[in-house]
């Protein structure tokens, strides 16, 4: 499963951990790319998008008939529940393990470690 990381989440730490977990499957973001450009690049690579920019990417998803998957990370203003890079990678790994056939047209919340929304 290819995974494109949106710029809002793309620390070196997260990208490095994801690359370790999913060698050769992680696509780093282009700098300052618009949401539409991110979406198009993901579709061109048949990659799911990992983003914290939830409202805007859900709006894009609603305009499309199909997509390659959307993985959402949100914050809860709670240090015990807000996800660090390592937690995000664990959540993504749980999602991938749960859906080995791919994430086409799925919108999943990483915070819930794979609970389908």
């Amino acid at each position, binding site marked *: 499963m290819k995974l494109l990381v949106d710029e*809002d989440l793309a*620390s070196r730490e997260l990208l490095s951990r994801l690359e370790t977990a999913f060698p050769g499957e992680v696509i780093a973001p282009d700098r300052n790319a618009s949401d539409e450009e991110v979406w198009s690049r993901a579709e061109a690579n048949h990659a799911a998008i990992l983003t914290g920019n*939830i409202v805007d990417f859900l709006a894009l998803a609603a305009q499309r008939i199909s997509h390659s998957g959307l993985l959402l990370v949100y914050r809860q203003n709670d240090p015990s529940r807000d996800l660090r*890079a390592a937690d995000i990678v664990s959540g993504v790994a749980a999602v991938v393990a749960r859906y080995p056939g791919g994430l086409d047209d799925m919108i999943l919340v990483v915070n819930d470690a794979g609970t389908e*929304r």
Partner: protein
Amino acid sequence: MDTEVATRAIADRYFSGVATDAIRSSLSLLAWVIQAKQEGKRVVAIRRERMPDQFEEAILPGLEEQLAHDATWLVERPHPWRRQPWIKGRRLAAGDLARAIEIEGWSPERAANEYDIPVEAILEAQRYLASNRELVIAEEAENAIAAQQAAPLSG
């Protein structure tokens, strides 16, 4: 510069020309300093990278907002619902970036390396968060609500 001229200059610069706001803020800060000293604390200025683990910080709303407004690395961009400034040349909202750093517990230098942006930009984002936390948290909540309501969109 005499006191009246200095007060007027500060009021014009940081308090939209309202001298009473400048004076009220100054007295508030003075009261905080006095209380801290009465409690046996030191009131010092220190570079952000040398900050101790525990400290108290004076936040002056008018001043903080103006300093944020004067930022070099933060820029305004039109957005349907977000009101945070952005890091210049990047799709990183200032408050979101500062929150990510806060969650990870990174130093400004570490964060600058993590996101490949100048330390000054990190510091400006952190100052923005310090004076606009409610807005940043509210925008986080918008995203959280959207995520939790996304069920009808699933495939």
